[in-house]
Every structure is written in C-alpha cells, then in structure tokens.
C-alpha cells in the first residue's frame, strides 16, 4: 500500500461524491472513512446487482457512474409501479442493509455501471460517525414508503383515468337532462315516451320538481303487463315510491354505496332544494370501474354455488383496494366492504335455505363485532349468531337442531368464500349463540346485572349485533330490551367505562409512541387493540347510555355526541382520529396482503412519514380526550 496514491484516489472519490446529496453536507472525517473503504466494482448492462434471492444484504452501493433500476419484486405487482431509476451519486439498498435482511427490490444495471461498495459493518460505522448520513438514511426510508404509496395511487389513478374517479362528485357523471313526469301522467304516455326516448327509467316528480317515485322498464312487466292493469291509470299507482336520492355534491362512491346497501339499480341526484337533477344508474357506475359494482353484485345475487361467491368475495376486496388507492376515506371504505360482505353473506344464506327448509320459523341471522358495526377491514373472520322465536306449538329442541344444522352449513360456506371460521367459535353453529329471543334477552340481562370481566368482554362483542337476514325485527326487539336493561342498571356502564379505560392510548412520555407493548412485535403499535378499540369501546358506552340503536362507531360518536351536547367540532376531531387509525390499518393490511402475508394490525411508527406520524399522534390524543370524558362521566 502506498499512502500517496491512496490519498489521491480518496480525494478524487470525495470530490466526486460531494456533488451529490447527502455527501455534499457530510463531515470531512466521515467522507474520508467512506472513500477509503469504498471499493469500486463494475456491473455490465442488464446484470443483477442485488436481488431478494441473494439473502441478507451485506453490501451498500453508491453509484459512481451508470444507471440502476430498482424494481419491486413479488408476484402481485410486476408492473411498473414503484420502479425507480437511479443514477450517479444515489445509493441502495438502504433499508435492507440497515436491517441486514434480504432486499425486497431487485436492482438491475440498465447501463454499464460502476458502484462504490461498502460492507455492512462499515456502513453501520459510517452511520454512527456521521449524523448527516444517519439522518439521510432514516429519512430516505420514510420517503420511500411515502413514494411507493404515491406510486400505488398513480397506478390506480391511471386505471381510473380511462374512466373516472370514484371520488368525483355525482354532478360530474350526470350529463343528460333528467326526464320526468307528474304523478297524474297516464301509464301509456310514460311507457311511450320511455320507448321513444330509449330511457330505462322514468322519474316521477311533484310540482316543485322534487322526485317522489321512479318507474323502470322491469317494473312494466311485473306491475302492468302481468296484473293486466289499464294503461290509463296514473303512473303514481305503479311507481316505486321514496326513491333513493343523493345530493349532487355527494361522491360517486356514495352512489355505489347506496346501490350496494339498498340493492337498487338507480339513484336520483338532487340539488340543494331537493329538485331532480338527474339519474345515476348502475350502468353509469359500471363505466367507472372495471371490476364493477354491478358485475360483482350481479355475480353475488345470481350465484348458484360457492365457487362463484368466492370469486365475488375476492372481487369485493379488489374493488375496495382500488377505492383505497383512489383516496376514498376509511369510513366509506369500511362501510362499503361491510355492505358488500353483507350481500355475500345473504346469498350464502339463501343458497343454504334451498337445502334447509326453515319455512314457518321466525328467525334472523345476526352479525357481531366489526361486521355488526359496519366497519370491516380487509382481514375479517366470522362473528355471527341466530335469534329465533319458538311458538308454544313447536318443539324447541327440534327447532334448535334444524337451525344448528343450517348454521353449520352456512358457517362452512362462509369459510369457503373467504370469511374464515372464528377462532373463538363466535358462530351461529355454536349452540350457545343459536338462541331464542328470550334466551338472548336472558343472556344479555345476566351480563348487564353481573358485569364480571368475561361479561364485559362478551358485551363488547355481542352488544354490537345487527340483524342481517330474515326476521330483522327480532334484532330491533333485542336492541330495545338491551337499552332498557342498561338504563336500569347504572353500575353496568360504569364497569364498562372502567374496562375501556384499562387500555390507554400508546402515547409515550419521552418518546412519541409506546412501542414495546407486544414482545413479538418490537417497535410496533397494535392499532386494533391500542387504537381503533379505544374509540369503539367509548362509542359503545355512549350509544348504550343515550339509547342509540346504531352500531357503527362513527354514527354512534356523531349521534351520541349530539345527544350528550358535545361540540360538533370536538366530535368531528374525534371521528377524524378514528378514521385515520382505520385508514392506517387498511393501508397496512393492503400492504401486507400484497406481500403475501395475512394482514395484521402492527404498525411501526418509525416507518411512517413525518406527516402521518404527527396525525397518528394527534389521533391518539383524541382517544385520550374521549377517555377523559368517560372518566368524568362515570367517575372512574
């Protein structure tokens, strides 16, 4: 070794590096260390420099000259998304070499390329030596995450650009002037103008142009032709009254949601005064989405077997992913997923009713937990039960057996279509959860009167029930009973509040977040247990206290907030906090799914970008505020 030659090359390397960030602001001493230890290697065009198959990364590369393409590996997205071309002065793979794990990207030289190479040990030492370099690396990881998220959105935006975005206002897709008639118009005239104008539906409006009904082509067959109704009768006799209407400022996904929830094919668009501005049909939305709502719903409703439903279940998830990428908020998204999952569940039930004769029995299918609250995320398992009435003339045991056999098949099929069995056996096929209305009422009463820990846990799952199919009024009756029970036992809500307060938002005194609560996931926060659930538990207590029928957390917060006299901006801030946490969970589950892992709720705050981290912190503060309110209200 000759020190003169080395010093000369080191100086030359430093001069070259100094033209690029972060080396331009790195300390001289650290630069010398880097330049002395960086060995120069050559990679011809098209050669692979780093690939995931190479295992844990032990070398850090700085491009001296040439171009390197970084491409996200994995079978799901092999398209251009999150591919990145790097040139002179850029470094890779920062994240992998820091974590000493295999790279998730493939780095290919797309030109003849020379790279300075540093061993992982020297890299670590350099980070310790240079604050600038260390900051650069950590920030880079945050930006990369951000970047890939943005690129994800770009990818979906491109797809949507051929059509239109789900988040554009309804007024943007209503192009034709609405065709409408008064309620007195004779059927003949209406049908004639529908035929001549090639219109599928006619809106019936009052004298102020406010829609009062809708009449569609398919109605003609069922309501006029078959009953042999006179064509001179007024249209108001055959129209569907109370059509679903949305403001022209509502978003396209609101219309999609309304169609999914109410199983209608048309939604009317009205202005601020309720006057008809147009009609949005499923066909209009179909042109917006390749994996269309209409397609999915038709597939679900027309499905004759489980295989078709399984595909539909996958389509629901895909559509939800698209909506996530288009920036649809968590509130709409979770409702949307729940609504379509409901449709799938209903169809599974219908298919099984063809085999199991339950005629003459009054029963309803109940959903619990997140499904009951209409806020399902991507990863969701079954939580269901059955409520039924047993008239005196029937044998209860025999009835129960029939329902259990039916429930077993439904549970099995739901598992097959993509809702895995519940690990805690919270399923309708469990005899404990296939009960008469009286038995349910008794169960609830027991939990409310003796609020021991298990009872409180049960309450947090089962009190968010919702009747999904069958005699849904049984659900209403059960809700009424529950609210009465809770009203008469003030100690119960107090115990619920104490229970809810046993988990605190993970806000650290020194660090921003407490991330060491789960030893299996160091550095991470469980956003379900220490995030969403804080809001959900408080909202449940508020809802029970104010006699609300609603199960959805956002609705509970808004409505109960109103009844309790909370300032509306205060409620809005809490709702926003909850929605943000839900959004992070959805994103994370999406990310995990993309990488072939089951979606969990463990998020590493260090990997969030600065903005997201701040919002997350604020969201936890909102949870704390909510808890302080509980503390005050219930003196615990």
């Amino acid at each position, binding site marked *: 070794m*000759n020190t003169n030659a*080395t010093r*000369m*090359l080191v100086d030359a*390397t430093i001069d070259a590096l100094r033209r690029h960030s972060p080396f331009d602001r790195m300390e001289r001493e650290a630069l010398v260390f880097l330049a*002395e230890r960086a*060995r*120069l290697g050559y990679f*011809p065009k098209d050669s692979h420099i780093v690939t995931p198959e190479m295992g844990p990364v032990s070398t850090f590369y700085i491009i001296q000259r040439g171009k390197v393409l970084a491409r996200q590996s994995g079978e799901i997205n092999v398209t251009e998304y999150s591919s990145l071309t790097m040139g002179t002065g850029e470094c890779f793979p920062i994240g992998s070499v820091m974590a000493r794990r295999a790279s998730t990207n493939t780095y290919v030289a797309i030109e*003849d390329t020379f790279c300075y190479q540093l061993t992982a040990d020297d890299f670590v030492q350099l980070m310790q030596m240079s604050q600038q370099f260390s900051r650069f690396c950590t920030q880079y990881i945050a930006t990369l995450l951000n970047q890939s998220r943005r690129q994800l959105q770009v990818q979906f935006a491109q797809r949507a650009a051929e059509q239109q975005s789900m988040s554009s206002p309804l007024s943007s897709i209503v192009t034709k002037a609405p065709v409408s008639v008064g309620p007195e118009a004779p059927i003949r005239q209406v049908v004639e103008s529908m035929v001549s104008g090639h219109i599928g539906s006619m809106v019936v409006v009052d004298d102020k142009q406010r829609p009062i009904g809708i009449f569609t082509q398919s109605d003609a067959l069922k309501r006029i032709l078959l009953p042999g109704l006179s064509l001179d009768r007024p249209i108001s006799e055959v129209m569907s009254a109370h059509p679903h209407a949305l403001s022209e400022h509502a978003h396209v996904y609101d219309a999609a949601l309304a169609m999914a929830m109410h199983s209608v094919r048309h939604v009317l668009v009205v202005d601020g005064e309720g006057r008809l501005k147009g009609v949005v049909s499923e066909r209009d939305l179909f042109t917006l989405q390749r994996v269309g709502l209409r397609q999915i719903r038709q597939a679900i409703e027309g499905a004759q077997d489980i295989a078709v439903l399984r595909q539909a279940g996958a389509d629901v998830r895909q559509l939800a992913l698209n909506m996530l990428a288009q920036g649809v908020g968590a509130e709409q998204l979770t409702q949307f997923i729940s609504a379509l999952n409901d449709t799938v569940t209903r169809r599974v039930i219908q298919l099984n009713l063809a085999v199991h004769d339950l005629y003459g029995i009054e029963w309803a299918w109940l959903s619990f937990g997140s499904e009951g609250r209409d806020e399902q995320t991507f990863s969701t398992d079954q939580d269901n039960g059955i409520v039924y009435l047993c008239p005196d003339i029937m044998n209860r045991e025999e009835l129960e057996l029939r329902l259990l056999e039916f429930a077993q098949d439904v549970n099995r099929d739901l598992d097959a279509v993509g809702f895995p069995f519940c690990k805690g056996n919270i399923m309708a096929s469990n005899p404990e959860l296939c009960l008469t209305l009286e038995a349910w009422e008794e169960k609830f009463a027991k939990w409310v009167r003796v609020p021991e820990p298990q009872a409180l846990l049960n309450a947090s799952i089962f009190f968010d029930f919702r009747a999904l199919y069958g005699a849904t009024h049984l659900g209403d009756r059960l809700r009424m009973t529950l609210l009465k029970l809770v009203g008469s036992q003030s100690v119960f809500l107090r115990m619920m509040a104490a229970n809810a307060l046993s988990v605190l938002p993970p806000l650290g005194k020194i660090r921003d977040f407490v991330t060491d609560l789960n030893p299996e996931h160091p550095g991470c926060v469980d956003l379900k247990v220490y995030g969403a659930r804080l809001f959900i538990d408080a909202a449940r207590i508020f809802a029970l206290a104010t006699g609300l029928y609603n199960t959805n957390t956002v609705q509970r917060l808004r409505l109960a907030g109103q009844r309790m006299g909370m300032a509306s901006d205060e409620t809005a801030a809490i709702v926003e906090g909850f929605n943000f946490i839900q959004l992070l969970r959805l994103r994370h589950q999406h990310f995990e799914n993309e990488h072939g892992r089951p979606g969990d709720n463990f998020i590493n705050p260090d990997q969030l970008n600065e903005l997201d981290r701040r919002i997350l912190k604020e969201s936890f503060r909102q949870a704390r505020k909510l808890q302080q309110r509980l503390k005050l209200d219930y003196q615990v």
Partner: protein
Amino acid sequence: MKWMKKLFGGAPVLPSVSLPADQAAALAAWRKRPDEDFARPHFRTRYVVVDVEASGLNMRRDRLISIGAVAVSGGMIDPLDTFGVVLRQDEVSSHENILIHGIGGSAQQDGVEPVAALLRFLDFVGKAPLVAYHAEFDQAMIERAARDHLGTALELRWIDLAWVLPELFRERIDAQAQLDDWLGQFGIGNFLRHNAVADAYATAQLLQVALTRGAATGKESAQSFFDTEKARRWLRRAG
C-alpha cells in the same frame, strides 16, 4: 558475493550493479515469491494496472519519472491497494515535459531514490500479471529502469488492453484505438490526466469491464488474455 553472481550470471548484457545488502535481500525476497497461477479465473486473480510518466516518449533514451499502479483484485478496486511513486531525477526533465505530467523540477529532485522506488514497486506487484494500455512503453520503461538500477531483468508478464479490448468488444471498436476512445466508450472519467495514479485508476476501470466481458465469453483467466493478445497481434501482422 557468490550467490549474486549465480543470480545474475545468465544475463551477460546486464550492467553490473552492486546493491547494498538490505536492498539486495529485498530483491532476492521478491524473486523468491511464488509465481502466480495464470490459469486462475479473473475473480481469483490480483491484477496490477500500471501507468508510467517519463521524460519523453523515446523508450531507449528517456527516463522513468513516476509509476502509478492500481490493483484489481477479485474484480474490485480497493483504494488501499494502490501504489504511486516519483523517482528521483539527477537531471530535471524539459519544461514541455513537466507541463504534461505536472511533476515539477523540485518534485523530481525530491523523489524517491530509484532503487528503493523500484523495490517498493516490486513489493507492491509481487508476481501479479501487469496490465497497461499500450503496454510496450510502460513495460520498456520499467524493464530498463530495473536493468539500470537493479541490474536485473524482471520477466513479469504483461497484458496490453490496447490488444485485448478490440477482441472483447468487436461490436464497439474492432481496431487499435487510443485509450481515451475506450474510456469514452464506457463513460470512464479521469480525474487527473497524465498523472500516473489517475491514469492507472482509469485504466483499472477499463480492466474491470474487460474482465467481466472476458468471463462471460470464455476468456476467463490471465492466460486466456495473454493468448488473445498474441493471436490478435499475429492476425494483425498476417493481415
């Protein structure tokens, strides 16, 4: 000294040089170093890329002023495995010559005593195959200096990239070309033209390219590069 006579006995044209004992021992130690196995694949071979600066371009008359050398080991350039030396001159080279390599009069006079400089160079090289562009000149200047100052022929093997590159990259330049043409082909820069170390560094990067292409086309050892060069020279003469 009997052993020295034995050592240099076979080369009657060599001037008789008597070295001080320690330098003679250093030279003998270098001689005893085992020969390289030239059949080894490139990635297991240490090549030493050499560039020299002289007082002019006449291989017989002009004097060696400096040597720069950069090792390419396992296909990689390690900044710690490099060499540079300026040889002390009794007579400063011409003003025009100084303008080319930038080694001024006082730097030339302050250089390392030639025997020590050459011994250091040999210690750095070992028996590694040497590489240069238009290697005849570098080889001739170093061999002549060794003869004059050490009283010995070095008998090191050289690879001339000016011959090997056109064979490896026929699609680019299938003829004799200037070093700068090849550097331009691969976008290789030179941070200090006509400085022996900087030139050797640039040429070393060219060797990295050549080794990679060679390994991919069956010319995967130093020996196959010797053969390539030989065949190409013969072809040129015949054609």
